């Protein structure tokens, strides 16, 4: 073996295995056994409150102004130019450009206070309203990005530029898997029917960046086989497949000994994972034993693969089976010209299943150690995008300065609203929660000190929260 190549390829891998005396061969074996207690993981650093996460990622940025952040003054100023002082020092997307003189737009639907906690939730979300007492609404989220891909990438990986490991990958790396037959990090995507929104699900939203690639999210598809090419080709028996996989493994091991590329051991482990998933995925996707009342709770689309409702139920089944991080992404929230039209469909498709998921986890006793998150990459402007005279095309532009996100379970305080925006839902004025604070808090609940979960790459240690982030202790039980 070329000593320079060996150094280049293995230095990070050796660090990953905590500088133990593992040779390359045993390191490959160790990666096959990366579930709880079988291999060294770098975390937890302290006793976790939560074991797993289901992130309902609302791609496109839901309007906090219409859904959660109730401001009567918007109604008062409806149709009048937004006062200049609210806009000082702000930049908006190129669609808005200079926001001076933009007209205030009141929420489209009325709000009500819900449950014992009295949280404000719009009539757009009747099912979410019902479970308000289970939720922690963070009303003071803020971010850096003003466009979707950088915004989503920032929330999921801590960087606006693609290339860093995403949260699920960090957790798979830090905590390992709790089920050797399923990936530690799973991803499902959906889009509301009839939406004009053109959001794309980029693979880097579940990438592993510079972490070994076996930590990247495995995407489950909405139709046909949930995972492509898992089934054996026609005419090939399971025994034949097993034999071939053993042959490939033996050949790859020879190559691994010769060149030491850690990506070869990734390939070895992923072929084995795929083989085990031939059994575990059909069992996972089989909903025939779900009680009818449970299916009903998730709403009419639950049996239709590829819908948000179906993905929510699948997420619960994954959580039950120990999948560490389930990333359920739903696009269509980009209401530039559709707060009075498509927003209704968007809410209808997501409201009932999101609430059902929380209720279902609670029913099964899983909510105590599962964190559910519902939120997008930023908020939407309290002022109008479009022509005031044309109600059918009213919209709101991107708004990074304030948005709302909710969390449930996993040791997060239920029935509270945290943080506050000003009287037009424009700026955070109390208890700001920056994306990095949110990330630090999430890791904290999983027993991880966000400053200590690091990975050395290109000469420096990287973390999800970069050099930022404070745990928001006030929202934790």
């Amino acid at each position, binding site marked *: 073996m070329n000593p320079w190549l060996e150094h280049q390829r293995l230095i990070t891998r050796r660090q990953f295995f905590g500088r133990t005396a593992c040779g390359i061969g045993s390191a490959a074996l160790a990666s096959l056994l990366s579930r709880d207690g079988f291999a060294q993981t770098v975390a937890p650093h302290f006793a976790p409150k939560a074991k797993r996460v289901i992130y309902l990622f609302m791609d496109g940025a839901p309007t906090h102004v219409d859904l959660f952040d109730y401001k009567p003054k918007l109604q008062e100023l409806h149709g009048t130019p937004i006062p200049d002082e609210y806009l000082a020092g702000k930049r908006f997307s190129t669609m808005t450009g200079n926001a001076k003189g933009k007209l205030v737009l009141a929420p489209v639907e009325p709000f009500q206070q819900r449950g014992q906690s009295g949280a404000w939730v719009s009539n757009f979300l009747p099912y979410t309203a019902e479970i308000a007492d289970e939720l922690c609404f963070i009303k003071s989220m803020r971010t850096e990005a003003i466009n979707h891909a950088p915004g989503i990438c920032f929330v999921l990986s801590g960087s606006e530029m693609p290339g860093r490991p995403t949260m699920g990958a960090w957790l798979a790396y830090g905590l390992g898997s709790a089920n050797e037959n399923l990936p530690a990090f799973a991803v499902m995507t959906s889009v509301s029917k009839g939406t004009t929104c053109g959001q794309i699900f980029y693979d880097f939203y579940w990438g592993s960046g510079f972490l070994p690639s076996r930590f990247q999210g495995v995407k489950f598809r909405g139709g046909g086989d949930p995972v492509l090419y898992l089934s054996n*080709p*026609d*005419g090939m028996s399971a025994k034949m497949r097993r034999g071939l996989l053993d*042959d490939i493994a033996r*050949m*790859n091991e020879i190559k691994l000994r010769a060149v030491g590329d850690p990506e070869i051991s990734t390939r070895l482990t992923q*072929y084995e994972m795929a083989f085990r998933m031939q059994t575990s995925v059909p069992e996972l996707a089989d909903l025939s034993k779900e009680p009818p009342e449970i299916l009903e709770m998730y709403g009419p689309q639950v049996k239709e693969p590829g819908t948000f409702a179906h993905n929510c139920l699948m997420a619960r089944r994954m959580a039950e089976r120990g999948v560490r991080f389930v990333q359920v992404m739903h696009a269509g929230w980009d209401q530039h010209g559709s707060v009075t039209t498509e927003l209704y469909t968007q809410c209808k498709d997501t409201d009932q299943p999101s609430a059902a998921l929380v209720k279902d986890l609670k029913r099964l006793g899983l909510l105590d150690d599962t964190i559910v998150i519902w939120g997008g990459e930023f908020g939407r402007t309290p002022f109008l995008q479009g022509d005031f005279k044309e109600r059918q095309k009213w919209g709101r532009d991107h708004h990074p300065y304030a948005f709302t996100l909710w969390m449930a379970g996993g040791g997060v305080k239920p029935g509270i609203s945290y943080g506050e925006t000003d009287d037009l839902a424009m700026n955070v004025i109390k208890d700001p929660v920056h994306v990095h604070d949110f990330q630090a808090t999430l890791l904290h609940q999983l027993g991880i000190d966000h400053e200590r979960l690091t990975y050395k790459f290109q000469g420096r240690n990287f973390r999800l929260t970069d050099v930022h982030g404070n745990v928001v202790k006030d929202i934790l039980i």
Partner: protein
Amino acid sequence: MARKPKADERIILLAAVERLGHEFAVDQGAAEKYLAVRETKRNPKLDLVEEAAYAAFSLALLNLDETLTKE
């Protein structure tokens, strides 16, 4: 991947072809099904079992890390 196998690899690969041959010989229907997925017509002069064995064997070769990754 365009090279002759080394001694240790040769043992693994020859054993694989032989084993696959045995398995398809026991179930010739499986061999037919396995070979049905193709763009060119099957050459009837070729032995069914041997062809299926080599086709499956090729699947393994094409999925080796060395085939998929240039070091």
